[in-house]
Each structure stands twice: as C-alpha cells, then as structure tokens.
C-alpha cells in the first residue's frame, strides 16, 4: 500500500505525483510494512475481473494512519494486522534478456516500460542494434523524449554475456531448439551471480533437458510469455525436477510484478496453451486439405462459432508456420503421438518458404504495408 506524502505540509496523496499541489515540493513515497483491517465486507456479487466469489474487500489503516483497500481471497476479521514485508526481490530487479527475436524485443520493451534496468544480449551486433532501434521506436509511441532518454540509460546491450553479472534475473528467448538454447543458457550462467534466477521462455522444450546444461539447475525455471509480451497477460510458469522452492515461488512473483497473471503448469510438452492450440491449427489445416471450406471461411467460422478474436489459419500465419511446425514436431516427438505431427500442407508451405506474415505469404498473401 504505497502512499505519497508532502515533507512540508504532511498532506497524503494516493497517487504517484511529482509534487504537492499546495507546497510544490517533491513527494516522498511511503510503503508501510503492515496495516490493520478497520472494516471488511464479504463480496458475493461477481464482476468481470472478479469472477470468483466470495472474496473480501478490506479497508486498511497503517500505523501512520494511511488508508487503502485490499482484496483478500480468504475470510479475515476487523483488527487483523496484515504484513506486507519489504518490497519483493522482483520489484525493479535488473533483468537480462537473451535473444533479439520478436519475443526478446517484446520482453525488453515490457521490462523497460516498467522501469527495470535491462541487459539485452544478442550474438549479432547488427541484429541487436536493429532490434534496439525498433524497440525505442515502439516505446516512443507511449513515452516523451525525456522518458526515452531515461530508458536508454537503463538499457545495456551486449554481444557477449559479461554484462549479465549485474542481473538479478535473466530470461532466455533465443531460437526454439534444444541445443542452441542449452549453449546460450550455459554461457549466460557462467557470467551470472550465483543467486540470480535464470528462466527460459521455451514454449515446450523439456525443462530438465535444458537444465542439463547448467551448473545451478535449482535456480532455473520456465517463464513462458505470449506475444506481444507487452499486452498479453498470461505467463505459463513451470519448473524442472530440481528447481528449488524459492526459485519456483520467484517465477510467479516476478510474473505478477510485471502485471501478468502466472498460471502454473506441469513441465509437459508445449504446456497448456500451445498443447490446446496446435491441434486446433493442425485440424484447421486438415479441413483446408480436405476441402471442407476455404481458408477465409474456416477462419470466419471459428471466429464466430468459438468467439475467438482470430481464426486458426490467420493465427498460424502470425506466429510463423516454421515455428508452428517446430512446436508440432516437438510435441509429436516427445509424446510419441503422431496426431500432433504437422499436416502435409503445413510442411509443404514451410518447404516452399511461405512462413506466414513475416515472408508475406502463408495461408494468406499479405500486401506490403503502404508508405513504409
């Protein structure tokens, strides 16, 4: 429960403001470590965002007299004291990001936008610089020049891994293949502090296989963000067989600190979302192969019938058909279940180099953006 107080007149503000409306001096942020419940209500009426009822809304009062509202998922009584502890280790951690692909850039954008210092590592100096320019361009849509300058000061780019020594947590988002990922993870780890957490953004490789490359597999787990990480709220979190309890807990805490909703999943192939999505895409491709309907019609029917924002074929084009085929191959290989294997039409598209939006053609043909 943060509050901002004026050092001169002692007025308290509930918002992060730059100054006191009366005294025009900078405010001091206070974060009371504990507060007492002074009033409480059990809420039985669900609303969007608060579907699970009952829950409890408590009016809290800190020792200094600051008041705020908190949501509890369990019953409490007036007079109970709640401890908030010091700010979590996840708050404003220095974060390393490995990889300059779409997800690496999106993650860096998310982290920088939320005030973190970021160490961004990529092997190619040109690709790293191109990704950096694109990231700054994207942030300039939501920040002024001063804020962009501050972001640049919080961003370190490195074509090696040495700068990772200052990171509290490092998220790997390089190509979705086992050996390259293992190599990058192992090299990154040698430069990291021994207490720092290393997470992979893998969408479905085996956590334990990846952990084999590491000296400290207990500090390693999965943070699977969704594209674009700046806007998608889900993070699938998963752990390996030797991940420590504190690392396990940190994954969820860190995801929440980024404004995300972590969902804990078992370290099974493709986790929850891709395991559900890939068969849907594959079946839509099969429908196309069998002439059940045209691509546009399949997508329209799924959008309207299942209330999905985008049809499966258009979504596959957006993800990249090569990525889709990799995930499906991996699912089929690791489960031994051939029904997961990519359909022939998907394979032939990839063989022809039609990888979706990024190449201008997949299940659809994309016109180049005008004026760009």
């Amino acid at each position, binding site marked *: 429960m943060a509050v901002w107080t004026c050092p001169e007149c002692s007025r308290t503000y509930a918002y992060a403001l730059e*100054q006191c409306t*009366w005294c025009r001096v900078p405010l001091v942020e206070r974060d009371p470590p504990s507060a007492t419940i002074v009033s409480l209500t059990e809420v039985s009426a669900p609303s969007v965002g608060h579907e699970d009822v009952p829950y409890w809304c408590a009016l809290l009062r800190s020792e200094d007299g600051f008041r705020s509202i908190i949501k509890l998922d369990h019953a409490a009584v007036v007079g109970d004291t709640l401890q908030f502890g010091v700010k979590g280790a996840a708050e404003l951690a220095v974060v390393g990001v490995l990889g300059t692909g779409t997800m690496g850039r999106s993650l860096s954008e998310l982290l920088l936008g939320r005030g973190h210092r970021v160490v961004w590592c990529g092997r190619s100096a040109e690709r790293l610089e191109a990704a950096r320019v694109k990231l700054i361009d994207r942030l300039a849509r*939501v*920040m*002024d020049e001063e*804020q962009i300058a501050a972001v640049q000061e919080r961003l370190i780019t490195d074509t090696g891994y040495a700068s990772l020594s200052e990171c509290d947590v490092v998220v790997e988002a390089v190509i979705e293949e086992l050996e390259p990922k293992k190599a990058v993870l192992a090299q990154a780890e040698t430069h990291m502090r021994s207490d720092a957490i290393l997470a992979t953004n893998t969408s479905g490789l085996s956590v334990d296989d990846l952990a084999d490359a590491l000296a400290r597999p207990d500090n390693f787990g999965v943070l699977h963000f969704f594209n674009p990480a700046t806007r998608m709220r889900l993070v699938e979190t998963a752990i390996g067989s030797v991940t420590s309890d504190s690392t396990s807990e940190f994954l969820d805490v860190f995801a929440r600190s980024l404004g995300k909703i972590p969902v804990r999943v078992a370290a099974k192939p493709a986790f929850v979302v891709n395991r559900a999505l890939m068969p849907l895409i594959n079946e839509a491709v099969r429908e196309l192969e069998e002439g059940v309907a045209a691509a546009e019609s399949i997508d329209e029917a799924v959008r309207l019938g299942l209330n999905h924002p985008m049809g499966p074929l258009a979504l596959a084009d957006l993800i990249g058909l090569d990525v889709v085929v990799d995930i499906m191959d991996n699912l089929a290989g690791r489960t031994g279940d051939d029904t997961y294997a990519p359909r022939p039409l998907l394979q032939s598209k990839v063989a022809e180099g039609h990888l979706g939006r990024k190449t201008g053609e997949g299940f659809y043909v994309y016109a180049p953006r005008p004026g760009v």
Partner: protein
Amino acid sequence: MESPYVLGVGKTRFGPTSKSLQMLAQEAILAALGDAGLGPDDIDAMIVGNFLGGPNEGQLHLNSVIAGLFPGLNIPSWRTEAACASGGVAIHQAVLSLSRYGTVLVVGAERMSDVVGMELTRNIGMAGDAILDQAAGLNFPANYALVAQAHMERYGTTTRDLELVSLKNHANANLNPKAHFFLKKVSQADIDGGQIVASPLRLFDCCPVSDGAAALVLSSKPRGKRCIPILGSAVSSDAISLAQRPTRTSFPAARDAARRAYAQSGLAPADVSLAEVHDCFTIAEIVAVEDVGLAAPGHATDLIRAGETAIDGRIPVNASGGLKAGGHAIGATGVGQLYELVTQLRGEAGERQVPGARVGLAHNVGGVGGTCSVHLLGGL
C-alpha cells in the same frame, strides 16, 4: 454579469508520455494556478473535460479523480463530455458558472497512448452515432473524407490545398515546444509518402492522438495585468450523423456557435487577429475558417494558397500547430486552444508570436460537427 476573465493558463506538452492522467492534470493545474498567482484554496469550483477515460482507461467520474489531487478540499466539480469538444464545452460551462462561483478551474485531460490500433479507432468512433454510422464502419477519417469529397466537388478544393494546411501547421509546431511534433520536421516528401487513410485523406491529413492536459483559471473579476477577457462564449449542436444534415461542406453548429459568440462580443470576423481552429483533419481547418466567417464559403483556400493563414499572414490560423501538428489530447484540446490564445494575446508566444494579436478566436468541434464551441478573447 461582468465579463469573464482568464486569470491563468497552463498546459503540458502534448504527445506520447507514460505520465499518468493525474500527473498530467496536476502539471497543467499547477501551471495555471501559478500563472494566476493563486493557490488551490482559491478555487471555488472545477470542471473537468475528458472524452475517453471510460473506454481507454476504464476510468469515468474523472472530476472526482482530479479532486484527489486536492486532498482535504471539498469543492463543486463535474466532468463534461462532448467528444472532441469536451474542453470547449467545459470552458463554456465555466463561463456560465461564474454567475455562482467566483473562481473556476477548468481542466482538460486525456490519455490516448494506452490503447492502440483498431481498439483506439473504435473508441474514438464512439463520438459517432452507434446505429447510423459506427455500424457502417464510418470512423472519423471516413467522416472527414466525405466532408473533403463534398468540398472538393462543390468548390474545387484540391489535395494540394490540404497539403498546404499540413505543411503550415507542421512548420508552426516546430516553433512550439509544447507541440506533439515540435521536433519532427515534415517535408513534402513525407507527405507524398503517406498512405491513404480514407480517400482522399492521407496520413499527413490526419492529426495524431496525444496524451496531455491543459488548465485555465477563470474569474468574473480581473486580476493582475496579464488577465485576458473572454468576450464571447458559445456552444451549439446538431444531429450527430453527417447523413442527417443538409450540407457536408460546412458544420451548421459551428456557424451557429460563431454567430452567437460574435453577437455577445459585438465583434465581427474582420476584428479577429488570430484563430485556433479544430483541424483534426486538414479539411477541417478549411471548413472551420469558412464556418467562423474568416472566409466566404469555398474561399478559405484563397487565404491558404496566398499564405495569409501563416503566422506572418493577414489572419494566422493555428499558430500553435493546431491539432494537426500541435497534437490532439482530446479532452484537453479545447482548453489548450485558449492556452494558446491567451499566450498570444499577452505577447508571450516566443518564436510563434503573432504580431499585433488583439482578438483571438477558438473553434472546437466534437464528432463531425455534432457539437461546436466558439470563444472570442482579448480586446480591441
């Protein structure tokens, strides 16, 4: 009632920022109060102009949010919404409320950069009729494209005229440190490369959407040497859908608001020395110049082609850069227009100062002319 006076003005930079709405509003409020030489305890009432707090940020009831910037203070306040004219209408309400309240604070504030792309276009489209226009996909570029088509057909207005408006307003914005595109140089080549948004309007015919806030302190009594009288304040309205109006080359509500403001002030268009008009699209500036009587119907292009609407021209229009290049922080836009006029009339506009500015006109439009406000400031 005595003539209302603007005692103080404040404005943030318009443009993308990650500052919260509260921070932006406070910055503008403190600037306006400081400019007026007053403190928070001197405010008798507050009116907040805002359009999209609900759909963009899930935040309605903004007058109360802004009241949170004044902990312990309980004063009358309310929020005004009239789409892109929210700011101008808030000022008009403030002028009327001076019959009861001595000193009134007007705050316009908007955050636009949290929502992007199609969702933002949909939200802005809420200023159009849900049944008559939104259902047909008539978003705002499309609305103003129909206005441009009609103006071209009837008066021979050309895409070159639209480009001249864009080039002028971008050049003016380069002189205004608070403008969205203060640092962006826009050339003919940039304009040529802009994609079609809704034919005939291209990218550089459209204003950006901005984050920002602006504030004014109004009083029925003059205070200090820098206060500026409001000579006329008027609002008018019309059917929301363009299809329900007899004309597409003019906004009857703007003409009516202008007529009322001129009548109150005893002034005529010939008395106006500069105008800030609602150029959400380049065609809108052309229509505005005609609607407020600075040119006869179909003849705004004569002024524009002759350079007479430039800062050093006979009747400078949008010396601030307008919405087109100064930025459009929707609820703040109408309030920001008065910030500009007051700054100009005080002779404090720096590099973009209009020489000999005596009477300023502000023209603020909601939707495609469904609501319009016109204000006249200064003195002969």
